[in-house]
């Protein structure tokens, strides 16, 4: 995948992921998400263009989700591709992450 693209509007960062989120890039994804949260920004992870996500990719999302909760910041996944959603559903992680369907982050 290419580097996650981050757009910041006021205190809300949208981090767009694309391609395969696996061991080769999950560390980059992790850093991008944690950096936004540590800066005090709410985070939406846009996953429309994610073609595959493995457990290391999911772990990056889990870590960001846990940090957001600790810091009291909003964290959600938006426009999750079918490929990514099937992985999340299989492990019932769709019950953990707030998932919004619209591109505005509202479900």
């Amino acid at each position, binding site marked *: 995948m290419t580097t996650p693209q981050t757009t910041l509007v006021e205190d809300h960062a949208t981090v767009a992921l694309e391609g395969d989120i696996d061991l080769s890039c999950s560390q980059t994804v992790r850093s991008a998400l944690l950096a936004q949260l540590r800066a005090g920004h709410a985070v939406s992870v846009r996953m429309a263009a994610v073609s595959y996500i493995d*457990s290391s990719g999911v772990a990056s999302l*889990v*870590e960001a*989700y*846990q940090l957001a909760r600790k810091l009291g910041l909003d964290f959600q996944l938006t426009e999750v591709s079918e490929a990514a959603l099937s992985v999340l559903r*299989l492990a019932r*992680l769709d*019950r*953990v992450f707030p998932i919004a369907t619209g591109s505005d982050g509202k479900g």
Partner: protein
Amino acid sequence: MDGEIEAPPVAARATELEAQAALFAELADGFARTLNLDATLRTALLRIAAHLDAEAASIFFLEDDDRILRCRDCVGPVDIRGLRIDARYGIVGRAVREKSCLMVRDVRAHPDFAASVDAGTGFETRSLLCAPLLLADECLGAVECINKRSADGLFGSRDQYLLSMFASAAAMAVRNARTTVALVERDRIRRELHLAREIQERLLPDPDTGLPVAGLNLAADGVSGDFFDFQPVGAHHCYFSIGDVSGKGMNAALLMAQTCGLLRCLARSIDDPSELLARVNREIFQTATRGMFVTVVVGLLDLQSGEVRLANAGHPPALLHRRSGAWEVLECDAPPLGIEPDLACPTRQLALADGALYLYSDGLLEARLKGRPLGLDGLSHWLELVAAEPLGLRLPRLVECLRNNGAYWSDDLTVLVLEAPR
């Protein structure tokens, strides 16, 4: 410090060229043979300083992402070992940046001269010769000779040529020494992974318990993040579990060992799979770092009735294969362990009757056959083909069939099968 520079032992009849060649051969040989780079550098610095008739000589290595030049060793009246110079400044810094040998006949007039070093040491630098430690693709640092003692006190092109040759040999020796250190480290890590794998294998259950359960674990790369377990509990029950820790490597292996051990220990006193997972989840949630989590199925098989009670937290669905040929897919009921502080994972009850229950890690679902992941349909197809094999041989036979048909996988692969006692 022991920095006395002696006159070079040049044979009376030897020509200067022969003397240079002999010196270079001696230095190169010393670097090539050395097991102790520091001692060899020290000897080499003394020899080169003597040969160039320099008052002092020092060698600097680049450190901190090439931002700092640090003096590794020196010979001469002042000890500057450990001295750190910003690599952007000074004559040494320029030689490293430009990757060229610099000869400065009057340092006071040179714009790059860092007078602060002399101010700190009390040593007066007049002339200087500095050569970078160059390899094909990188610069490791620089070596410099200071203040020619003889004649006009100036270094010449012969000196420049000799110091450049010396720097080339030293750069190769430094690279060799660093490669050796890296190899030793890699060997140490490999040994530790081997020991960790041994411990993991000891965590796997004894296959000859007489219980109607069999398991198989193939680690993809050294240590495994997967586990399975089965143990008798009381007189009439068999505890079983299968799990998969997110990620790879030593941290996954440690979390795997912790989860497997906690479950086995608590399963002796907690007979409700749902409660067992809730308890272990709390422990894992406290200790897991970096978003790591564990998908797991735990259960109890009643050895008299064949009834199974199980709970599945985030793990791929269990497959129940009835003797009639029908398949039942038992999806998981809760997210994995380690994500939320509290986990509500209901216990399911099912009658094994004459069927077989298969549990497996996602490495098996994602094994590729004819370029596509095996998936649930593929897996049940191959399980049907080996269903007639005796319990103890069935899983190795499954792997053999998959391999013979060109399947391959890059993840750990773990499978567990249970049948009702006959």
